[in-house]
């Protein structure tokens, strides 16, 4: 991982230079002169012969344009005087080099509120959530893979449901429970039932943010660690046992080191996501003016101080990169073990004995809190007529199918009659499908170019650049895209406020994962399968259609489903880019929540979660019945 980051940092060259260098390398020595007509002919012949090079070059240029150029753009914007700065320094010359933004962010009285406090809050939040989420995820993974806890099948499916929900669903549920009279409006269930006001530190700020985020992000740690744990061959531990190690020593000396890479990537993934997450800190932090980096970037952009936002976004990226770097230093590149073996693979489950039932009950309780409770609270909230009154007599279906009564909720009609909501729903689904399809195609092409071009520098560059969006925290990437696409660039019109920019940023943000999927899918198709077709006279396009795509389908579908889910529930990434013209469900929920329209936001959130779960179940069933079982050949 450090290698990739280093590559990205070092090789910030425009593609023309890459192309020239690449050609020079492939030309080598004692051959016709590079620029001779004959050699150019020869090289173009070669190129025609190697489709992966053409795809690689095109993909590299495209990705440089949508990933590296925007980054350079905000660095430039942060270091030059902008027209919106005239309000502070009327003598400034627009477009001139200036340290004004850096000075404001790091070195002025305002810096404490603008930078240092949010920095501290973000770091505190990041560490706390990572530690809790990782511990919870690890325990769950261990229970599910290595013990004989009951109902594994059902739990396995239930545990990943938080992963499918937007990360801030928990925050909305928390508010329904603990909301106090601080910000006015209705109060939560706790106050309704007991009459007690939850203290501010319970209702808002650091504590609830950490708890709600941890209850979402444990799913990532759980998925990564249980995946790794399932591939640790028990024979390795048994080998330890035969050489006289006790149970705990075996875990410490054998199992844990083997899990370290997975734990490491779980840490990085969680931490970077937390740094970039917007919804939860906004919902639970802003009422008490608890700012994190992400909410501060949002506030700066809203206050038209884009320069500040860009500097903050850059700091966020630097933080993420240094975090990846430190992590890879500790874990080390050498230690990315391959523990999977084809033979003699066995898993042993340890018997929980008397604890079997209690542990199972504990798991059920955990699932009730993380999965059932938020959904029930959302449903209940959406059915209350007057917010804050949770009695049965106050229940109504108005917010689901009301026609729009002027005396209620500013006259907003219920979900099924609300044009705004239905339009946003349509947009969300469109966004999900568009992102999934583009990501699928792009992931496949990048995977193809990277795998088939292995050994060439082009392949390495492409792999690095496809991975680059990983290190941009979501909100920072959003800020970058505001900087880049708010004006037209050459033939490309200003994309700000369009639906295209939402698709573009979603595709780019998901690219690290889909290109991984693409690379893995192409890697498992042995090169000879394609070569056999080639020698038999089958052209590139037909090979893709008849061989590569059918064989990589199962992996691709899984990757596309993931993109679809991510796109549907995404808020942090697109919050800076949505406007009434390209509103999606998540943005709408956020604005309802901001206007304290709890029933609407709960109803729409619930609808969103149900749609995501339904679609992912359908896709899973379909791809299973499509019969990919035949593909496991020698």
């Amino acid at each position, binding site marked *: 991982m450090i290698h990739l980051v280093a590559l990205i940092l070092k090789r910030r060259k425009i593609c023309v230079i890459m192309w020239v260098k690449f050609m020079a390398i492939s030309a*080598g020595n*004692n*051959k*016709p002169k590079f620029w001779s007509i*004959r*050699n150019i*002919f*020869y090289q173009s*012949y*070669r190129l*025609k*012969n190697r489709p992966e090079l053409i795809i690689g070059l095109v993909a590299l240029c495209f990705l440089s344009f949508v990933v590296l150029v925007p980054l350079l753009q905000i660095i430039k914007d942060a270091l030059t005087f902008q027209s919106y700065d005239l309000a502070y320094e009327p003598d400034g010359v627009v477009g001139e080099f200036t340290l004004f933004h850096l000075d404001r962010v790091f070195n002025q009285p305002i810096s404490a509120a603008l930078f240092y406090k949010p920095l501290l809050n973000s770091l505190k939040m990041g560490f706390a959530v990572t530690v809790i989420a990782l511990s919870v995820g690890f325990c769950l993974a261990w229970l599910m893979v290595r013990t004989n806890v009951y109902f594994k099948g059902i739990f396995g499916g239930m545990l990943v449901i938080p992963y499918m929900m937007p990360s801030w669903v928990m925050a909305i549920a928390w508010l329904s429970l603990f909301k106090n009279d601080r910000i006015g409006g209705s109060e939560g269930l706790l106050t309704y039932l007991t009459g007690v006001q939850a203290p501010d530190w319970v209702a808002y700020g650091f504590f609830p943010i950490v708890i709600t985020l941890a209850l979402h992000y444990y799913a990532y740690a759980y998925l990564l660690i249980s995946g790794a744990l399932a591939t640790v061959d028990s024979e390795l531990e048994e080998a330890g046992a035969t050489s006289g190690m006790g149970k705990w020593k075996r875990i410490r000396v054998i199992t844990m080191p083997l899990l370290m890479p997975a734990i490491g990537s779980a840490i990085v993934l969680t931490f970077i996501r937390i740094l970039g997450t917007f919804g939860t800190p906004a919902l639970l932090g802003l009422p008490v003016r608890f700012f994190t980096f992400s909410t501060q970037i949002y506030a700066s952009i809203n206050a038209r101080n884009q320069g500040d936002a860009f500097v903050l976004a850059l700091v966020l990226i630097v933080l993420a990169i240094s975090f990846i770097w430190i992590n890879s230093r500790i874990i080390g590149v050498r230690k990315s073990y391959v523990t999977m073996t084809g033979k003699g693979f066995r898993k042993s489950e340890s018997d929980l004995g008397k604890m079997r039932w209690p542990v199972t009950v504990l798991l059920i309780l955990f699932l009730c809190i993380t999965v059932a409770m938020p959904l029930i609270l959302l449903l209940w909230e959406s059915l209350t007529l007057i917010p804050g009154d949770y009695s049965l007599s106050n229940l109504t279906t108005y917010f689901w199918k009301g026609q729009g009564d002027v005396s209620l909720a500013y006259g907003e009609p219920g979900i099924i009659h609300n044009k705004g909501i239905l339009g946003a729903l349509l947009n969300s689904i469109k966004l999900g499908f568009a992102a999934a399809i583009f990501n699928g195609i792009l992931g496949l092409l990048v995977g193809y170019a990277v795998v088939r071009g292995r*050994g060439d520098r082009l392949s390495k560059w492409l792999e690095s650049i496809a991975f680059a969006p990983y290190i941009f925290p979501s909100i920072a990437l959003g800020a970058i895209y505001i900087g880049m696409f708010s004006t037209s660039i050459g033939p490309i019109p200003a994309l700000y406020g369009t639906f295209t920019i939402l698709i573009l940023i979603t595709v780019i943000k998901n690219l690290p994962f889909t290109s991984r999927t693409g690379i893995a899918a192409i890697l498992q198709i*042995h090169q*000879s*399968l394609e*070569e*056999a*077709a*080639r*020698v*038999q*006279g*089958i*052209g590139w396009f*037909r090979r893709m259609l*008849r*061989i590569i795509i*059918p*064989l990589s389908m199962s992996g691709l579908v899984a990757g596309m489903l993931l993109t679809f889910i991510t796109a549907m529930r995404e808020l942090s990434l697109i919050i800076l880019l949505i406007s009434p013209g390209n509103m999606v469900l998540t943005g709408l929920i956020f604005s309802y929540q901001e206007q304290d329209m709890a029933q609407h936001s709960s109803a729409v959130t619930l609808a969103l979660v149900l749609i995501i779960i339904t679609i992912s179940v359908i896709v899973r069933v379909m791809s299973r019945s499509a019969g990919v079982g*035949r*593909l*496991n*050949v*020698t």
Partner: protein
Amino acid sequence: MGQILLNGIVKSYGKEVVVKNLDLKVETGEFLTILGPSGCGKTTTLRMVAGLEEPDQGMIKLDDKVVFSRNDGVVVPPEARHLGLIFQSYALWPHMTVAKNITLALKEQKISKSEISDRLKNALEMVQLTGYAERYPSELSGGQQQRVAVARLIALRPKILLMDEPLSNLDAKLRTEMRASLKRLHRDLTATTVYVTHDQIEALTLSDRVIIMNEGRIMQEGSPYDIYHHPANIFVAEFIGDPGINLFEGKIDNGKIKCSDIEIPLPENFPKNKGRLIVGVRPEKIEVSKTKKNGWQEVVTGIIQPTGANTIIEVKAGETPITLLQNGFITLPENSKLWINFEHDTFSCFDPETQENLRNNVG
């Protein structure tokens, strides 16, 4: 029809040169085997002929048509070279039935439907897989998969067949069977065949001509008989033959080659002024007696390995280990005494410096 010509081919991966200035000509209808240890450049050479790898320098001609030339800037892609290639892994498309595997390329060529079904039927008959058309590759045994790969090739009727270690994934018994059927296939199709292997038995049994490669160079080229009996250098002598050849370093002295523990009679017509040399004697060329004979050398037995029809006997003459190969199933206790004799003129002599065969130079 079906001639292959390679001229001055050089190929390197990074700094490592894997094929060094290779010249090679394969005549129409010939069965040529490229034999060598792994990493010697044999598979790379085959893949360059197929067009799957690009040489750094040189020229390749198929049927008098230039398909690659670095100097003239010609690269014909594999799709347009019209040859057949069998992969070590068979490379059957796992998501297609046997029939589809065989007919996919035919369909791409816009061949008529009746012709396609004729060719399919014919190809399946030739590999004795009639009735397996609707199976998937994963439902076939290794040997059957191999035969599907062959059928796929037959259906296309190429004039040039390239085979990249096609038998190495099969078990020993199946390998012997498939060897015979590949030879039959070559005969029936009368196609020029280049066969790449590291297995000397395949090379010796199948080929009209064998090329032995090592470290990107051709070490020797000739008929299987020549390669076995007149190795051009120590590498070939050691590489061919199982059990391996015995090598003794010695000096010519008084009409004999004197090694540290043994003496070997000097062949006729041998230049007597040579200094040190290395003698290579094949294990089956050493006569063995259980009783003492005049002029024979006494040796002590070590490990005895009967393989059924033959027996490999390891012996020591003083400190020099010698391997013997005798017909029949022989059992002997360890440390028994035997007497051996070097048959006259049945061995090779090599120059220790150049490693070349001295007697080939003599004639």
